[in-house]
């Protein structure tokens, strides 16, 4: 007996719910933007600059004592938090003036030596100056924008411009909701999250392209049904694959989330979120946009059929 995620033949009227989906998506995008605007993002050292030191103590560490000892150094804002387990502490010091990062590290290490002597180890140290953090922000934004642009052009070439636009609208939806997710959860937003966003773009697009391919194929095959019917049929035909791939990807990602360690937890969380909303957006964002854009069906009639027409 085979495991079936969906029945052999489905005919879910996805597009009947498109108005609800569009309203929901718009609300989610506005909500994400508003929440992020108000609460901001918990930027990691890559974008915020400053000093991060992770230490491991032999006994459960007194986070508050560490924080107040380092705060008294006059280096500005200091945060100390448990990182993964009680013996592991992550210390973050705010952005220092250009070229003074070394001195800040030295001062923090000296304070830790006074507190713990030899009974702790430094697991990692990171220091990023203002110039570099500015560049990393710039590069991250450029990479995401270029990726979206390049993908739109590629899809426009392979399909029609309406498909390209539909794909990009769903990508913008995915990116907005991912940023909103980070603002809402307060998870650290760093360079590897930009990598996660680019991967989400790739994954969501993967899904969208599979659906679009089927829509194109059905547009060629059937002349009678309306665009909405074609979209619904295509979504149903690809539903089994969409869910299968989401499940296998989620299986791998969940393993990584629970077993992969603290450092990449944020990255994995972003990816899991991205797989879920990427799957949603291919069905409920890209397809309705495509429907609204009046795809010319002429473009998909094979040439030999055209020439036979009276």
């Amino acid at each position, binding site marked *: 007996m085979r495991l079936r995620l969906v029945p052999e033949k489905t005919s879910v009227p996805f597009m009947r719910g498109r108005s609800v989906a569009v309203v929901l998506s718009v609300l989610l995008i506005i909500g994400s933007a508003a929440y992020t605007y108000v609460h901001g993002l918990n930027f990691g050292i890559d974008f915020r600059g400053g000093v991060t030191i992770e230490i491991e103590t032999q006994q459960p560490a007194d986070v508050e004592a560490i924080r107040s000892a380092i705060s008294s150094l006059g280096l500005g804002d200091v945060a100390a938090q448990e990182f993964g387990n009680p013996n592991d502490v992550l210390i973050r010091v705010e952005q220092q003036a250009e070229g003074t990062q070394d001195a800040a590290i030295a001062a923090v290490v000296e304070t830790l030596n006074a507190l713990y002597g030899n009974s702790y180890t430094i697991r990692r140290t990171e220091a990023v100056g203002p110039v570099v953090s500015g560049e990393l922000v710039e590069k991250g934004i450029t990479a995401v924008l270029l990726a979206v642009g390049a993908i739109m052009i590629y899809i426009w070439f392979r399909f029609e411009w309406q498909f390209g636009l539909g794909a990009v609208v769903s990508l913008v939806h995915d990116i907005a909701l991912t940023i909103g997710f980070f603002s809402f959860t307060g998870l650290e937003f760093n360079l590897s999250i930009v990598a996660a966003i680019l991967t989400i773009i790739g994954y969501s697009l993967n899904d969208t392209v599979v659906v679009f391919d089927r829509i194109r194929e059905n547009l060629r095959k059937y002349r009678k049904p309306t665009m909405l019917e074609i979209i619904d049929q295509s979504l149903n035909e690809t539903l089994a694959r969409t869910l299968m791939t989401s499940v296998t990807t989620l299986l791998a990602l969940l393993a990584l989330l629970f077993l*992969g360690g603290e450092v990449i937890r944020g990255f994995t969380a972003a990816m899991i979120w991205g797989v879920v909303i990427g799957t949603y957006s291919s069905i409920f964002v890209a397809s309705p946009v495509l429907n609204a854009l009046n795809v010319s069906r002429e473009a998909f009639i094979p040439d030999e059929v055209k020439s036979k027409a009276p």
Partner: protein
Amino acid sequence: MLDFPRWKIALVTGICLLGLVFALPNVIPGAMRANLPGWLPQNTINLGLDLQGGSYFLLEVDAADVLAEQIEGFSDSLLSAMRDARTSKGRRVGYAGFRTSGQTVSFTLRDPTKRDLVRKVLNAAITPVGAGPLSPGTPDFTFDISEDGKVTATLTEDSIAARKSQVVGQSIEVIRRRVDELGTREPSIQGQGDSRIVVQLPGLQDPDEARAIFTQTARLTFHLVDGSASPEDIARGRIPPGSEVLPFEDEPSRKIAIRRRAMITGDQLNSASASFSENRWIVNISFNSAGGRVFADVTRKNVGRPFAIVLDGKVISAPNINEPILGGAAQISGSFTAESAARLALLLRAGALPADLVVKEERTVGPDMGAESVAAGKIAGIIGLVGVVVFMVLVYGRFGIIADFALLANIVLLMAAMSGLQATLTLPGIAGIVLTVGMAVDANVLVFERIREEIRIGRKPVQAVDAGYRNAMSTIFDANFTTLIAALLMFQFGSGPVKGFAVTLAIGILTSVFSAIMVTRMILALWLRRARPQAITV
């Protein structure tokens, strides 16, 4: 689609076997790896600093420091050009108000009618920058002489850039010598852009030591002490021209006036070493033969007078010259510890940096943490893999087993490509591999779902499989190509760990497409050919 001639079978099998050979070194113990015959590849996957532990430093040459030095040399050369300038009657050309500001030198001619002569002199002083066999280069400075005789000469951007890249090149050399002295294995020191240097030190234990070694300029000079300046003059900053006031290294409030011109500098050193004598740490230095002669000469002329040993603008000590020092050897004694004496000796041996370097970015990961990340990644990868493998069998039965086989081939090929290309695996890269495991089956899922549809409309097994592949092909291509675009952009714009992730993702896309459409298809084709099933269930 299902036509697999012998050569194609041989090719696909060959690639998989080659993959096995290249992936092999990663899974056998190190001792066994060393005993592999020479013709087998022995490279393992190159672990990034975040996985093997180590330090990454982004250093930037202090542009203001470089420019200040360059403008000083520039104004010297203009001064000497003007000093040598003669009118047709053999007279000197008078000028006043010689000064420098930013990248500009300006002065005013006493006699504005000498403009043409000065123009000629300055034109002759221009040296081209970036000249090569195909280009004449650009001038290193431009100048302008106004009607009333005001001369302004400005260094061009090209000349400043050329000087900067020269400084970067020299700095890299000096840092390499210093790092080599530290004994770090496989350091990587590279220029980046026009004023940056990236230093990567795998397995370094003490980032403080490394930081001190990059950022200390270590410019050692010997100066005569200016005895004419009284302590009151020094306190008030009233010192004779040609002298300057410097603080002591161990007691910054104590200051001394020295002659600006150095008797001798650290680039004339032959060797330097730390030693312990008379209950304190000292650094022994010896000059090369030219330096030794100069040193002997000045010390002979200045017996009884004090001189100052200056390191990076701070006076280490100011002893008296009791007798001429003829052997070319000297001792530097200050308030050294064993470590600081050893470090100074190292820096002096490696030479001074041509300009100050600033640490812009620094990342150090301890070796334990890297090992934990690798272990966690391995476990997550294996569990994820088992989950996907079992799930595929549950859903697709026999076809699932075949897809699982392709998945394993994919992992082997991915490891082989990473080892063969010596791509760097980073922590996000491990996430990339685990993700690839989840996404790699996608191409097979697309094909299998397609085959199901074809069977449903009544096609025979061979036709159904054939049509399944044919119809899924363009989708597979489009879907993977778009992800590849994202990976390439990540590589282009990402830094460090993100680049590592992009590489893994890109290689993973290529190997997964190959294993899904070649390996699975071949196994299916061979099975269909042999078993000739009347009906198949996917």
